[in-house]
């Protein structure tokens, strides 16, 4: 999927995560910024989930800001999927 616009998903609520995405020049690669209260314990795991999600949706060029408030893996994956689909205009069944 190609990231064509800015998008976000999630929130700053406890057990949630706010994912912000914006497009970058083709060939730039993945620029990922992670901020998490549990970064010391789970930082590597979080980064792996992000990379796996980007692999799944074949996103190669992206600027992604990840602000975690203690979300579990299931929530992280849901918010990443939502943000990626929104940013690539692939989301269905919603209103803006």
């Amino acid at each position, binding site marked *: 999927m190609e990231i064509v616009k800015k998008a976000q*998903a*999630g929130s700053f*609520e*406890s*057990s*949630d995560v706010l994912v912000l995405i914006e497009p970058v020049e083709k060939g730039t690669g993945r620029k990922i910024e992670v901020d998490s209260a549990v970064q010391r314990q789970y930082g590597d795991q979080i980064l792996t989930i992000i990379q796996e999600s980007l692999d799944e949706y074949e996103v190669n060029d992206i600027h992604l800001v990840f602000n975690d408030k203690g*979300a*579990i893996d*299931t*929530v992280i*994956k*849901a*918010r990443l*999927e*939502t943000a990626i*689909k*929104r940013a690539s205009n692939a*989301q*269905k*069944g*919603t*209103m*803006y």
Partner: protein
Amino acid sequence: MLYIPGNNPAMLLHGGVYGADSLLLDLEDAVALNQKDAARILVRNMLKTVDYYGAEVCVRVNHLDTPFGMDDLNEIVPLQPNAIRYPKTETIEELDRLVQVITEIEDRHGLPHDKMKIHIMIETALGVQNVFEIAKFCKRVDAITIGGQDLTADMNIKNTKDGAGIDLARKMIVMAAKANKIDAIDTVFVDVDNEEDLRIETQYIKELGFNGKAVINPRQIDIVHEVFTPTEEEIRKAYRIIKEFNRNKALGIGVFAVDGKMVDAPVLTRANYVLELAGVDSDAI
């Protein structure tokens, strides 16, 4: 039945720990229009991974007449929660379309047609008028619920504390459900700090014949459970009735008395229901 907003990770994660018999993961009114996609994806993921400790899990989808209903069903039906709750149902034609859509999705995924149930919400005057036909439409419909907030809005009346405006609707819905041997679930009580009136309303709807009540805050669960759970005295009496029935049956006696009152078939039916609610196996008495 505890309502859980579909876009709230914390509540979706912890919904099972409060002891509700049933959980409603809501993609409809509890989700803002611009977050429908996020809630749908989140609930889908949660259904795959979260342990709800044996509680019945229902998902309230959006109506097929909205831009969200079809996508909700496409994401949720393959996961086969215990039930899909369908809002604002007014006619059997709408229900027929819903069943067709669900069946098509199940066929695409090689799923059976008889596992996941359908709970119908009656939330308009037209729905109330058609509730009997809706309740008997198919075996997948195993519960009817009343949506008090939307119904009062549809009727353009105030939602008063005594529920006078929706009283007839409540009674029609209970009667339709009972006539078709399915459950009737009452609407939410929105004043979460008013526990006294919640208890009064729950007692009233229990007497009408509802099998349960929806709640919007975990604090309300215990009160609803207290009202619906038989008292020790009721359980002991039901136990004595069934015990006496079994003893008299062995002697070939059809009608007998317990505590000076005649016991006949309806009394036995009620006694069995009390024991069922109390978790007592009446066959073992």
